[in-house]
């Protein structure tokens, strides 16, 4: 099968997946999540300001109401800085004192959105919601006529998996784009680095979706895909974090053999913690959020390699997709 024919198959798979997402309402569920987050961002108001502070020079800060209770000369003598600004959400429905400068406040919201809503809840929910796409597609009653078409099996499988990733990529772009625009409109602060969340979210999803694809080929069970990929995601987080813990705090009663095993496991499996740390760095989040001490120490020791972390995670996904395609090629229908 030549390139134009392969592209044609991919195009049909993408079209089918979008129709499937519309029919299962998944498309609208994801759009609704984006709409809610966008509305929240639009309702955000940042007033007043506090100059940026560095991690090594954290000043004592007090909200305005608390500071009023103390003599001003004491505050001055102790170097206490009074929070003069505030952040309000829900068009003023909820207000919190602002203890950082305006840009940091917006970037803090962006880290919450991309790291919390997108990278953790979003990726897990996307994996959960799309877990049934492949098992139903590969079920013998659905697949026999499809597999009797001239397109090779590997292309049919990977085309379907790719189309799901394209669907998630579109949703991630809409999510990041809409919240970036809303935050920019409501606060006047436009952080270009926030867009890095799109490739990181897609990469993170794609890597774990490769495992879901393999499980779908192997078992054709949605339940196995959901639980399998969730357990694997948990395993990768633990593996990634434990590796950093072991490297940065080596003398905590751990057997000497553990470190090489952990090292192999770390380089072999996806690294969700590292992908999060890359985004954290891109948004210069150290000014307003404390990163895990293990990651911090690893970076200080010059042992954190973001390019290798991304490359090896990506490689894992490619290998698992290739294994799924090989397994699919061998299956009797």
């Amino acid at each position, binding site marked *: 099968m030549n390139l134009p024919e392969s592209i044609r198959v991919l195009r049909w798979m993408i079209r*089918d997946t979008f129709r499937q997402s519309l029919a299962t309402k998944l498309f609208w569920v994801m759009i609704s999540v984006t709409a809610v987050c966008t509305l929240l961002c639009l309702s955000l108001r940042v007033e007043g300001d506090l100059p940026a502070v560095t991690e090594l020079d954290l000043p004592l800060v007090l909200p305005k109401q608390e500071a009023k209770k103390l003599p001003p000369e004491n505050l001055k003598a102790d170097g206490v800085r009074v929070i003069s600004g505030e952040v309000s959400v829900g068009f003023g429905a909820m207000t919190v004192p602002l203890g950082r400068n305006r840009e940091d406040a917006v970037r803090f919201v962006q880290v919450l959105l991309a790291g919390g809503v997108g990278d953790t809840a979003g990726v897990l929910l996307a994996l959960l919601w799309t877990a049934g796409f492949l098992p139903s597609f590969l079920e013998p009653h659905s697949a026999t006529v499809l597999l*009797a078409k001239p397109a090779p099996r590997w292309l049919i499988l990977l085309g379907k998996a790719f189309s799901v990733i394209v669907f998630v990529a579109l949703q991630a772009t809409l999510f990041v784009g809409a919240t970036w625009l809303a935050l920019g409109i409501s606060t006047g602060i436009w952080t270009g680095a926030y867009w890095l969340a799109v490739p990181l979210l897609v990469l993170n999803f794609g890597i774990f979706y490769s495992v879901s694809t393999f499980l779908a080929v192997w078992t054709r069970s949605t339940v196995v895909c959901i639980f399998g990929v969730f357990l694997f995601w948990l395993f990768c987080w633990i593996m990634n974090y434990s590796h950093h813990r072991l490297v940065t705090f080596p003398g905590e009663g751990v057997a000497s053999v553990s470190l090489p095993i952990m090292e192999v496991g770390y380089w072999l499996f996806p690294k969700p913690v590292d992908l999060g740390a890359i985004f954290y760095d891109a948004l210069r989040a150290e000014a307003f959020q404390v990163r895990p001490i293990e990651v911090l120490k690893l970076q200080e020791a010059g042992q954190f390699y973001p390019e290798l972390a991304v490359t090896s995670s990506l490689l894992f996904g490619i290998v698992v997709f290739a294994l799924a395609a090989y397994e699919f090629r061998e299956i009797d229908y």
Partner: protein
Amino acid sequence: MMAIAAEFNHVVKRYPTGFLGGAGIEAVCDVTLAIPQGRIFALLGPNRAGKTTLIKMLLTLTRPTQGIITRLGEPVKNRRTLARVGYMHENHAFPRYLSAVEVLRFYGGLSGLSAKWLDDRVSQLLEKVGLADRAREPIRQFSKGMLQRLGLAQALLNDPELLILDEPTEGLDIGGRQLLRTVIQERRAAGKTVILVTHALSEVEELAEELAVLVKGKVAYRGRVEELLAGASRDSGGRNLEISLRDVYERGASE
């Protein structure tokens, strides 16, 4: 020399059983069979005779354990020839969220058919199978018979040289069966090959020119339909083929 649409040469299919595979179950045992082009060929046999397995191997849905299979003169591993094959499965589940038009365009697109060809062909086929007025409805609202008609339209999309119909009358009403007869007769008139896997003896008797009877994974009879009928009792009350087949099944089972 007559061209061959499908050829099985000492084909064996063994399905492994148990965790370690074991000796396995032999679904097809050393089948050698040639299906000539331009004929209406019926594959008959009792349940679990290996008919569907044979068809699945021809379509590369399943791999043979041993033997060589050719499709339209090429080894089956050459998937390009599948572009000249149409396949209707007895119980196929099309994506229920699509309409009839979308189903045909999707499967046609995957067969490598151009958009222009599909534009004309889809409406023409929906008209032919009697679904033109329901073309835009989601197929989850379709009855079993309507889905079978859609399956037939799907199999005819590429105007195939080789049309494989696996139990096509399942769920079809009288009108649907008549439609199927018409389609098969049209294929014959156009010089195309049809392989009919069926239990409906009346259709074999009426439509098929040649047949092979499979029993326990082996070819128990191969020949022309009228030759098989000639061997049956004359006063059988219109059940000639049934009586002839019973003999063939009994002989095949005792071997």
